């Protein structure tokens, strides 16, 4: 079975020691990643679950002289087969049987959180519960007695405030104790509603002999009764047809079984929380209610969102802009100068390769790091305090018209920083068609680099009207995004529309550690791309622009530009300008660099301003900017699209589509502007 191999952890076994294997489970918004980060620190490895675009985080650490391997399971509300996250979580426990599962639950919504616990109790590994957010619960007027809850469930329950690092190590101690000694008693487990007990027994008796290893037979029977698509398929092929026919017959008579199973779980939850849970919220207006009166209001919510986003941009550019200049001058510039001095005695092509090819491509990417770090940090804060769910709610109405989803808003917005994390960020969207559409539209959000090109060229070409041109050309791709979404939604994805079901977490204080690690991981993902894909393509483009004669005017790239001259002519562009757009495939800033090289003036804004107006008319200048704003995203983004869609067909389709869009946009702009603006 492919799962068996795929889900085995990269277990670290050194010096023949036993490694305790622990899985960390929990619903979303329970502070699970805070707990994971506290336990593993930076000793964590982030990758993907095999064959899935779901993040897998694991870490190995020592505790009281024992080695612990901790896997962070995806946050899920339940363990159905409805999403890849849920499948991963349950398959991991079934196939790998961790020594213990640490379940983090949120005391402020105890009953709903115990639903996942009810599902986990049906699986083979013993569990230990970390009752998190005790402080938030008290603010909400909710008191949970951990000892009474533990006694009722027969499972250790450790109260915690993970955001203040309280109780987390007790939680781990309790987990290790269970890993060694097992649970002190048989835990209380939910039972199906009495009117379905018989049919569940019958299904288990029928299927029992055919349940494949390592599935627990009672769990399989329950899932078949629930109508679980994956397990039903599996058992249909495992059991003989006549047995399966009997099962199907039973299922037909009990079509409401899922409600009976869920009802049984909630009956168990009421039973175990009785006496352990006290609520008093008379006349008590909580912080979340007060903030949401504004943040989710149909009108004021939009105002709040606009102010928040303006603040994010303001902060990012006010702090990041000067830092970027500093990195460019003192780090990338210094490196380039150093390399040039060092390599001057060697062959000219080597110096060209290092200074223009490598530092020109990868170096400029590095200069965007400060801006990205600040942007990701502010977005991380908004995510962590719980505001992003409100933004998704407010934007759902508008996103919906584009065939997108409230949850598409956050990743698309990340795209203003960099398209790469935007495309990776679409993982929060459960429905595949919505996610695919969001991925394909994301490159139309102008990233920091594209905006930098726009700003420089708008000032050089239209010094009088630079601001107007910049604003219009920033809005243009966004309008195209809306238009394409509107049409694609109706033509391509019409049938499959995603459900919008989203928890609105309570607002809470940000945890700096979690935000810091989040920023770090997004930056590392960006740098990894810069160091591999961008490096490789930079070198190739440098080679194309140098060979065969060492001059860009006579290079292969120039030949390609001249070959495309007829296409460029429709946009009013000559071959140098076409080449500039083509080289922006490596990194958007190359558009400026290439113009500088081809017109022999270098990259400085003053020099470009002096020379460029001579080579552009108003119409061709606008056409150039339009084409540049709509053109294929940088190679790192294309690589991310390939990775996240898992399909070359979609990736190449997207490249063709955007190239065509840029060409059409440029041509229409040129032809219209030539008639009206001259």
């Amino acid at each position: 079975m492919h799962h068996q191999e795929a889900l085995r952890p990269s277990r670290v076994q050194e010096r023949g020691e036993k490694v305790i294997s622990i899985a960390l489970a929990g619903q979303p918004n329970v502070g699970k990643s805070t707990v994971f980060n506290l336990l593993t620190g930076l000793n964590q490895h982030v990758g993907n679950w095999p064959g899935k675009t779901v993040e897998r985080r694991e870490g190995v650490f020592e505790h009281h002289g024992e080695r612990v391997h901790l896997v962070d399971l995806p946050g899920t509300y339940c363990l159905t087969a409805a999403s890849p996250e849920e499948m991963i979580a349950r398959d991991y426990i079934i196939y790998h049987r961790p020594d213990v599962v640490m379940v983090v639950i949120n005391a402020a919504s105890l009953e709903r959180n115990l639903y996942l616990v009810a599902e986990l109790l049906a699986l083979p590994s013993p569990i230990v519960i970390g009752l998190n957010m005790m402080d938030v619960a008290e603010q909400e007027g909710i008191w949970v007695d951990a000892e009474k809850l533990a006694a009722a469930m027969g499972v250790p329950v450790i109260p915690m405030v993970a955001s203040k690092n309280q109780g987390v190590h007790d939680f781990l101690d309790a987990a290790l104790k269970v890993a060694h000694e097992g649970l002190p008693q048989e835990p209380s487990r939910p039972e199906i509603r009495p009117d379905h007990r018989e049919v569940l027994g019958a299904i288990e008796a029928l299927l029992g002999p055919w349940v494949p290893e390592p599935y627990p037979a009672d769990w399989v029977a329950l899932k078949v009764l629930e109508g679980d698509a994956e397990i039903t398929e599996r058992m249909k092929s495992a059991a003989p047809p006549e047995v399966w026919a009997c099962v199907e017959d039973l299922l037909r008579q009990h079509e409401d079984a899922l409600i009976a199973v869920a009802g049984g779980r909630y009956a168990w939850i009421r039973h175990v929380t009785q006496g352990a849970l006290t609520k008093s919220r008379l006349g008590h207006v909580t912080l979340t209610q007060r903030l949401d009166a504004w943040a989710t209001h149909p009108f004021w919510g939009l105002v709040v969102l606009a102010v928040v986003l303006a603040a994010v941009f303001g902060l990012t550019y006010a702090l990041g802009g000067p830092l970027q200049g500093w990195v460019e001058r003192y780090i990338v510039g210094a490196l380039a100068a150093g390399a040039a001095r060092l390599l001057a005695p060697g062959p000219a092509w080597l110096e060209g390769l290092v200074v223009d090819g490598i530092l020109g491509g990868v170096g400029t990417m590095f200069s965007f790091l400060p801006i990205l770090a600040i942007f990701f940090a502010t977005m991380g804060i908004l995510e962590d305090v719980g505001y992003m769910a409100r933004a998704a709610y407010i934007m759902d109405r508008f996103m919906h018209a584009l065939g997108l989803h409230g949850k598409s808003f956050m990743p698309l917005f990340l795209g203003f920083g960099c398209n790469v994390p935007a495309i990776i960020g679409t993982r929060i969207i459960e429905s595949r068609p919505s996610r695919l559409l969001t991925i394909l539209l994301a490159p139309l959000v102008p990233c920091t680099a594209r905006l930098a090109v726009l700003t420089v060229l708008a000032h050089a070409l239209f010094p009088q009207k630079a601001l107007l041109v910049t604003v219009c050309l920033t809005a243009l791709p966004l309008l195209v995004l809306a238009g394409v979404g509107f049409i694609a939604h109706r033509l391509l994805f019409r049938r499959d529309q995603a459900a919008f079901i989203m928890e609105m977490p309570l607002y809470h204080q940000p945890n700096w550690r979690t935000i810091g690690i989040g920023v770090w991981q997004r930056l590392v993902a960006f740098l990894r791309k810069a160091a591999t894909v961008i490096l490789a393509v930079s070198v190739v483009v440098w080679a194309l622009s140098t060979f065969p004669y060492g001059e860009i005017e006579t290079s292969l790239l120039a030949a390609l530009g001249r070959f495309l001259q007829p296409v460029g002519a429709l946009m009013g562009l000559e071959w140098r300008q076409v080449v500039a757009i083509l080289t922006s495939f490596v990194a958007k800033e190359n558009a400026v660099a290439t113009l500088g090289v081809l017109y022999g003036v270098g990259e400085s804004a003053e020099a470009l301003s002096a020379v460029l107006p001579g080579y552009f008319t108003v119409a061709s200048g606008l056409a150039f900017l339009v084409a540049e704003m709509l053109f294929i995203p940088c190679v790192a983004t294309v690589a991310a699209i390939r990775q996240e869609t898992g399909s070359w067909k979609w990736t190449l389709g997207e490249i063709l589509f955007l190239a065509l869009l840029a060409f059409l946009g440029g041509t229409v702009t040129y032809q219209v502007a030539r008639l009206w603006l001259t």
Partner: protein
Amino acid sequence: MHHDDRTDERPSALNGILSAGHHKVVPLADLSPGQSGTVLALEGGPGFVGRMAALGFTPGAEVTMVRNPGRGPVIVSVLDTSVALGRGQASRVQVRPKE
């Protein structure tokens, strides 16, 4: 799964059962802000029902409408949590409103 504003596609048989009692039965999407009700039934496949059940929407559950701007998604409070639901989803939860 649909996520559009067409509301009622519930089977007529279910309709009959639901309206047989003397209490009226309405889609959750029709509750006004501040109004509470008891969930009676969920209409949809196991994917939809399973997800809603995990968030607390099961027959017998108490729900309170928090935000209902008339179009677009609503916010509903269930089991001490606020949940945003598309109008299409909220229309497929049948509730008996409190007097």
